[in-house]
């Protein structure tokens, strides 16, 4: 059995992210809001976020808490429908020569861990497209 790492990741044949989108202004939020932080609107619809985008910024993290494997590439991706998403850049060597700002990326999923009942936690990252 597989479960998503976070509730805004939807698994299945076409894994994707879902955001709460303000019905008034279109601002998107991962996580619940009582009112839109941009316009104050109180109605939200569930919106599917594009799985492709460009690399907006990154850092190659070499120092983290003891149980976190390093180095890894932390990234902010701007999806093709204009939503910013934070995740790791995956399937790439963690070296500045291998990463270029503005590069095309696509969402991919992988198993991040297995619990004692055999449940797999599925995470997402962005790989060079």
């Amino acid at each position: 059995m597989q479960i998503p790492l976070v509730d805004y990741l939807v698994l299945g044949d076409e894994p994707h992210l879902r955001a709460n989108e303000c019905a008034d202004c279109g601002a998107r939020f991962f996580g619940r809001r009582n009112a839109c932080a941009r316009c104050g609107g109180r109605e939200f619809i569930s919106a599917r976020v594009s799985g492709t985008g460009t690399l907006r910024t990154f850092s190659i993290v070499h120092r983290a808490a003891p149980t976190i494997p390093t180095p890894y590439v932390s990234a902010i991706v701007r999806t093709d429908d204009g939503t910013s998403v934070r995740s790791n850049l995956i399937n790439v060597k963690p070296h500045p020569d291998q990463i270029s700002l503005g590069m095309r990326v696509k969402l991919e999923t992988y198993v991040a861990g297995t619990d004692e009942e055999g449940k797999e936690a599925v995470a997402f990252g962005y790989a060079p497209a």
Partner: protein
Amino acid sequence: MAQDIWVLGTHMTAFGRFSDQDAVDLAATAALGALDDGGVGISDMDILACGNLFQAASGMGQQVQKQIGQTGIPVYNVSNACATGATALRTVIMAIRASEADLGLVVGVEKMGKMGLLAGGARKEKNVYEPSGRYGAVMGIDGILGTDTMPGVFAQAGMEYANDNEGVGFEQFAKVAQKNHSHSTLNPLAQYRREFTLEEVMGSPMQSYPNTLLMCCPTGDGAAACVLVGEERFASLSREQQSRAVKISASVLTTDPYVESGQMQPDVNTLTRNAAAAAYEQAGVGPEDLSLVELHDCFATAELIHYDNLGLCEPGGAGDFIDRGAPWRTGKTPVNVSGGLISKGHPIGATGVANVYEVSTHLRGEAGERQVPGANVGLTHVIGLGSSCGIHILEKSGIG
């Protein structure tokens, strides 16, 4: 317009790691130093604001009173991330402007020791995955969905600027740290006072590319304090007190307004730009008038983008600004002559008061070896993630 407010006295302890002094000792030293410097006593104070982050629930302000004088005045214990000190300062400014006080004491203090990374938790291996928290996460997400660590978050802020602007990269960020380490050699109160070559800065252990160890501020202990006075009381002070006083010509606190990417990457730019615009307007000065700036260089990547946010350089020109040496002590607009957070240190609650100490000391012409010649206007800036930005503009007395 509300009445003018002046820094009458100011003092800071050295920043470092002091095993023989707790936060109350450090705060008391700074507070008494500021009172003595202003030629006043604790019994003259109408209000005390005490900025402290990591012991925020301890009644730090009242503990300081017990150490230096319990006069029964109101105490405001202030906690606002890395903007804590500036927020405490502003608390007293607002009280004086509201005519609830004539004289007030601001103390900022932090005892951190060697804390290491301040964010980014270890991943606990759960036996059974159950969704929890605001995002229904089944395990710790730091290091899987990007980074929570400060060197990484501020690295991303810098690399975003590099994405949008020409001529900005690892070397430009490293030059910022080279400058601040060099500046700190002239500051006897700095936590570190060692010069490094650009190669040494770039070659020190990588924390979060492009921030190497020498491009990150240390944790540490320290305190700073200011005595503030409103203009009505100021008029009755001695000529000597008036001539050494420093005028606060702008005091601004902003938070981060909505931007699309803000939920994923803290936006340290917009709130700084908004605060700077308001502060320049209040003070009636522009960035070209500044003799010196003490800004929030928690990481080298942060300082570089604030050259642009504060209007110190042409839009998009922060890389060129550092390349031509403009923010060096002898350059066009000296930035972080104290050594900055990177080398002077960053005991969080003290930082936003210590930068007022630094700028005031230059405006008084009392900064010794590191004095910026002829300094008459200066700006202080802090950012607390979450986020808040505090900016103060200070001016030389002009009464001689």
